[in-house]
């Protein structure tokens, strides 16, 4: 069948192995990578994590880099995984093909930022370092470390589903002939920033995590990177991507809906695209973080999708830890290994079900797998599912669907003065936590929707260079001022780049496609390209596209000292794109 998207290479580095063979070996032996910290410098060394054995210096040596080079851990891990994937795909002739690197991350270069943050406030020589939330920088660095300077580079930031969404977007780009070869996945290093953030939300287990177990009490953070090489019509692929779904739970910034709406919709959409019945799925690699909120909600969603035909299910996070933005690609590679070698990895740490929970596979099973689902969900309810198959099922976009689009509204809010008028639309209890960027993005999107005569769009695609800069800097200050103790959860919960897109989805109850692009000044262009794809393929009739960024006093002072132009205090532009009649 023409047009099937195939995977021709994979690379992985995480707590249970530095390449695919090591990861497979650990999975087969039931050897967890969760344990004591070796590298992360934090006051919370009591927390178990799935940390990489390798130090930054060792990874620099593997990549042939000078040991004094300043490169973030996220970029180092990512580059190692990309090189592995490219080596397996054997794509030596990249030069004559249109190559795209689509990478998912949230904290990006945060390990550098938090290391240098205090000194940057006074030392001008450090100003060239990552000083903000611009997570697109780490993807550019990975590209240059892998000889991909000529590739298109783009970063997806939908919190913990970032890497899976990067793979989905890679597939769509191939189907629309925007690239010949896509390297897609994600990378995320452990940082004080998100370790303290998850700790402030009280969702870190002080013991090794136990996904779906009646005693599950939280997650263990992990780190790592994984990438896959995607091509059309490859001769001998590792597997095919048969389907995928991206939906929004539109429920809460950090909690999952009790009935698992977003997860249910994402799995259902993936099955529909693949043309598969639920009972044809052999195995689900669950998101299964070990938090009661996720595991109860995902159990409910799995029961809604599969009913009495529950496939084999396991979460592999008790092996790797929750590798956050990288988890979607790390678990995709785990699924590929399971399909190649014919096994189902165990859900470690499980002994009894949650009250209404699913029963996962508790010991390694030898099994031939035809069709496998990989689930990946993120804060803000950015829920995605991917289906891998031995055969090419999804024939690409249906023929004849190539709709044009027009702009139904274009609303800019670029001053903080206007923002008090939001009181008319949003209750005080919801408005109280919003900083100026969230307020401006809400005001511009509510006005744009009204101008286009819409209550809710079919899809929401946001673009941002630095995301929630103000709350992220306040949280960094909170970490320094309070020595990593008793930090404000309200700040962390509003620190991810997809905070805005998911908050708009919650506001207008939009369960449709939801994704956030973060690639510096190119973010909006990427978002509009995606909107075009959604409309052209008939997946959406109306798409809300927003470019949302802000500048803080601190960032303005960095810019002044570096002799760079200052960004506006707040910038929120919302477009409503609509299918041409």
């Amino acid at each position, binding site marked *: 069948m023409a047009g099937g998207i195939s995977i021709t290479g994979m690379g992985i580095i995480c707590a249970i192995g530095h390449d695919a063979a090591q990861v497979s070996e650990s999975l087969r032996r039931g050897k967890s990578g969760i344990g004591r910290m070796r590298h992360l410098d934090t006051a919370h060394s009591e927390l178990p994590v799935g940390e990489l054995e390798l130090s930054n210096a060792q990874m620099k040596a593997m990549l042939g880099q000078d040991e004094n080079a300043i490169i973030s851990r996220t970029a180092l891990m990512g580059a190692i995984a990309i090189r592995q994937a490219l080596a397996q795909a054997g794509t030596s002739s990249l030069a004559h093909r249109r190559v795209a690197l689509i990478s998912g991350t949230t904290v990006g270069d945060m390990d550098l930022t938090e290391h240098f943050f205090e000194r940057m406030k006074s030392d001008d020589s450090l100003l060239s370092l990552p000083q903000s939330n611009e997570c697109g920088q780490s993807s550019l660095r990975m590209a240059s470390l892998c000889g991909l300077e000529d590739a298109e580079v783009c970063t997806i930031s939908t919190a913990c589903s970032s890497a899976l969404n990067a793979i989905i977007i890679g597939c769509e780009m191939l189907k629309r002939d925007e690239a010949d070869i896509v390297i897609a996945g994600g990378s995320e290093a452990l940082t004080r920033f998100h370790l303290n953030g998850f700790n402030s*939300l*009280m969702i870190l287990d002080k013991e090794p995590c136990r996904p779906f177990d009646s005693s599950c009490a939280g997650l263990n953070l992990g780190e790592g990177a994984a990438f896959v090489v995607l091509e059309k019509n490859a001769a001998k692929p590792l597997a095919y991507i048969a389907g995928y779904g991206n939906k929004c739970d539109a429920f809460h910034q950090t909690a999952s809906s009790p009935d698992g709406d977003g997860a249910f919709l994402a799995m259902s959409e993936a099955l529909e695209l693949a043309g598969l019945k639920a009972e044809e799925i052999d195995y689900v690699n669950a998101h299964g973080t070990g938090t009661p909120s996720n595991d109860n909600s995902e159990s409910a969603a799995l029961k809604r999708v599969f009913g009495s035909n529950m496939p084999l299910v396991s979460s592999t996070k008790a092996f790797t830890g929750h590798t956050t933005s990288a988890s979607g690609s790390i678990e995709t590679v785990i699924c590929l290994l399971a399909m190649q070698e014919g096994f189902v990895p165990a859900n470690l740490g499980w002994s009894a079900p949650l009250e209404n929970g699913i029963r996962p596979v508790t010991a390694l099973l030898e099994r031939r797998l035809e069709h496998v689902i990989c689930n990946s969900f993120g804060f803000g309810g950015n829920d995605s599912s991917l289906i891998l198959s031995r055969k090419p099922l999804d024939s690409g976009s249906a023929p004849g669907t190539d709709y044009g689009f027009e702009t139904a509204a274009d609303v800019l809010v670029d001053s903080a003065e206007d923002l008090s008028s939001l009181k008319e639309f949003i209750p005080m*209890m919801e408005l*109280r*936590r919003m900083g100026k960027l969230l307020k401006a993005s809400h005001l511009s999107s509510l006005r744009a929707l009204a101008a286009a005569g819409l209550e809710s769009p079919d899809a929401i695609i946001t673009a941002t260079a630095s995301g929630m800069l103000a709350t992220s800097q306040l949280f960094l200050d909170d970490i320094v001022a309070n020595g990593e103790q008793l930090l*404000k959860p*309200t700040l962390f919960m509003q620190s991810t780049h997809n905070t805005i897109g998911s908050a708009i989805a919650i506001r207008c109850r939009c369960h449709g496609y939801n994704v956030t692009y973060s690639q510096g000044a190119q973010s909006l262009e990427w978002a509009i390209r995606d909107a075009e794809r959604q409309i052209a393929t008939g997946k959406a009739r109306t798409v809300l596209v927003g470019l949302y960024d802000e500048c803080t006093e601190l960032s303005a002072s960095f810019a002044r000292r570096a002799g760079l132009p200052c960004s506006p205090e707040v910038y929120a532009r919302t477009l409503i794109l609509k299918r041409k009649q």
Partner: protein
Amino acid sequence: MDELILELKNRIIEALSLEDLTPEDIDNDAPLFGDGLGLDSIDALELIVILDKHYGIKLGSPTEGREIFKSVASIASYVAAHRSK
């Protein structure tokens, strides 16, 4: 006790970004969550931080706080009985 109640209300208003309210707007006995003031799960985490930071009271999880956080009055009586600073 009245002094502690007022102090708690001021701390709650500040930590939970309730600047539009005054201490008088918050009824001592009215429910803080659900149909009362309308606080949510993130607010419960902020209340845990208040108890630890200012009164040396450590709660292991929001579930432990469920009974304590019913109203400002219930928080005050718990703090009065268990404070270590």
